[in-house]
């Protein structure tokens, strides 16, 4: 095992299932034999606030926070939040982002527009960018709420961890009755990677 640490950032809006996705990621890396640390802020963020979760894995991880500007992968659940946290990514880092806009309060109230053309802007700044239609693929898998698992599937392709560990982690963390849908969602996402 090399000494390299891989830094993953999960960003989006409170309530989108980011914390669960971060748990599945961490579990996968632990099963694959890595040291893992994960960090995020609870509390206010549960009520529609901006959420960032840090997941780091490697031979030995110290800080649970991704050092500023050293993110290898930014894993975005919503366009504006992905754009907001791009500065945490290292130059040349990978972005995997859900093609979805969720309006924040000022936009809901009609005081500010939701910024235009974010997907393009993200692609310009980060050429290694994969835009995922998470919502529709999740519906295809059987449940609109499984978009986070579709995204996980897409991310999984970029990381050198065997598929069996991903499946094992999903089976462990996802409630039984939602398992079949989530496994399908994962496979759909993985086929994009």
């Amino acid at each position, binding site marked *: 095992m090399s000494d390299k640490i891989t830094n993953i950032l999960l960003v989006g*809006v*409170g309530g989108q299932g980011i914390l669960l996705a971060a*748990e599945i990621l*961490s*579990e996968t890396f*632990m099963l694959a034999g890595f*040291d*893992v*640390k*994960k*960090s*995020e*802020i*609870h*509390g*206010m*963020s*549960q*009520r*529609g*606030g*901006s959420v960032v979760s840090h997941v780091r894995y490697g031979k030995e*991880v*110290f*800080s*649970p*926070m991704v*050092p*500023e*500007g*050293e993110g290898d992968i930014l894993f975005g659940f919503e366009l*504006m*939040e992905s*754009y*907001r946290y*791009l*500065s*945490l*990514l*290292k*130059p040349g880092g990978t972005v995997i982002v859900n093609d979805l806009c969720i*309006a*924040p*309060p*000022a*936009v*809901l*109230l*009609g005081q*500010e*527009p*939701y*910024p235009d053309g974010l997907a393009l802007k993200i692609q310009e*700044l980060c050429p290694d960018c994969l835009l995922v239609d998470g919502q529709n693929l999740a519906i295809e898998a059987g449940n609109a709420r499984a978009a986070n698992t579709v995204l996980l599937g897409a991310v999984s392709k970029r990381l050198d961890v065997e598929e069996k560990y991903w499946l094992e982690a999903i089976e462990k963390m996802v409630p039984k009755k939602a398992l079949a849908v989530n496994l399908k969602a994962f496979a759909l996402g993985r086929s994009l990677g």
Partner: protein
Amino acid sequence: MKEILSGNEAIARGAYEAGVKVACAYPGTPSTEILENTIRYQEIDSSWATNEKVALEVGIGASFVGARSLVTMKHVGVNVAADPLFTLSYTGVNGGLLLICADDPELHSSQNEQDSRNYAKFAKIPMLEPADSQECLEFTKLAYEISERHDTPVMLRTTTRISHSKSVVTLGERVAAVAEPKLARNAAKFVMLPGNARGRHYVVEDRITTLSKEGCSMAINRMELRDKKIGVITAGISYQHVREALPEASVLKLGMVFPLPFDLIREFASKVDKLYVVEELDAFIEDQVKAIGIPVTGKEIISLCGELTPGRVRKAFGLPENAQGTVEKLPGRPPNMCPGCPHRGVFYTLKQLNAYVSGDIGCYTLGFMPPLSAMDTCVCMGASIGMATGASKVLSPEERKKVVAVIGDSTFLHTGINGLMDMVYNKGAATVIILDNRITAMTGRQENPGSGHTLMSEPTNAIDFPMLCQAIGVKNIRTINPLDLDECQRVISEEMERPETSVIITDKPCVLIKKEGVFTPGKPLAVAEDSCIGCRACLKIGCPAIEWVPTSGKKGQAKIDPLLCNGCDVCRQLCKFSAIQEAK
């Protein structure tokens, strides 16, 4: 066995392995999940107390009869528990007692940034500080040994990044033989009359001197010698950031932050060329190191405010920072009350009535956010009512009418009730609105004496708020449906007119309650495009389910997201054109 646990989960596990029998807390971010995890272990009696002082007293009672007990709270909670805490330092314990206090550098969800390490020094109680989840588990177990060996309560300090970050932990077994609690009388130790306490003070001072010496050989205080040019004294999460940012530096990692192992610090200082202290918030270690005559650099390069990150440590040491792109300014995304939240109607009404709102801690603090913008003050748990009394004492009779205190059910029972007793007794003339949503919502839906269930899910007595207020001596008590705007407007304005104390209690539950049958969402509403004239009236309640679409209709139109709407019906009452109706 290995698992990935958060610091909070690891503390719960450590308590289980240490043989803890009683765990008690008042929820507070970031400490809350500790008790939500001790309930996984049948052997531990876990409960929510009405406030932190009571939680500590429950722990003390269990300890005095021989059981190991765990008490948890957030940093500001220690202020509430400080009274018994300082005397507990004198009595010492019988069964081990561990107090966890979770600090929140960077104020992710708190009203100040206080550094609880000062409490350990002030109350003369040893304090441990873990640096990851594995240490959370191990230090918890070690704390009980120290507690019983030195006859002292022990504090364990975490910070948000320890409580809520996860890392790999190796689990152990619960200790085999836990002593059965039984009544033990020892008045000289447990009755703190001046005569007894005077003698105990010497015991307390000796204990700290002994522990400072013992700390020099404790494995949790360790020197990691690498390059000798830079030596850093650090603890807790700061240790991780130092290792990340300065991998070659020598480090003295402290697991016990009070009392400090001064001989070990002297030894470390003699081995390195230049000595630093890297710590979040106060210059707690730094000042004590300076006081024994060792020159050290600390707060000159590291802020007294906010939490550290690997980047902030790099910057402090003048290392090159990673190039960071900047993006243009984006609309913010602050938290918001939930769609269908029962508090929205009340805040809307208070704004309409131009009330001076003395606010409190909880979801309803979000009533401060635009467009409701209906909160004028917020200081600490339970302060709203006392502050309203104070304001009403000095204002003119006309202005006094505007003063309204708002407080949630859990906060009212925490410390608000004391303020209400005072208001009635001292003839305060303000209106108090108890926003009873039947749960401690902000911290994540914890049960309280108003919800009718215990932490361990047993049905129990539910407080009758009107009767409670009556018993305190409130004469004007009214209950309202907060989702009925006309009723809110009528009742609140009538009570504001009254030149004496009135209490209004709202009776709709939090929309996030999980217990069956407490909250049932209504049918989602929808905006009829042909009726909506774009007046924007419905936007004034700030429901996240309602979006303004500037491109629809003549002047733009409102749209309701059927997936988010909980059908509370408040927006419909605001629409003069009957454009909002049940979705087809």
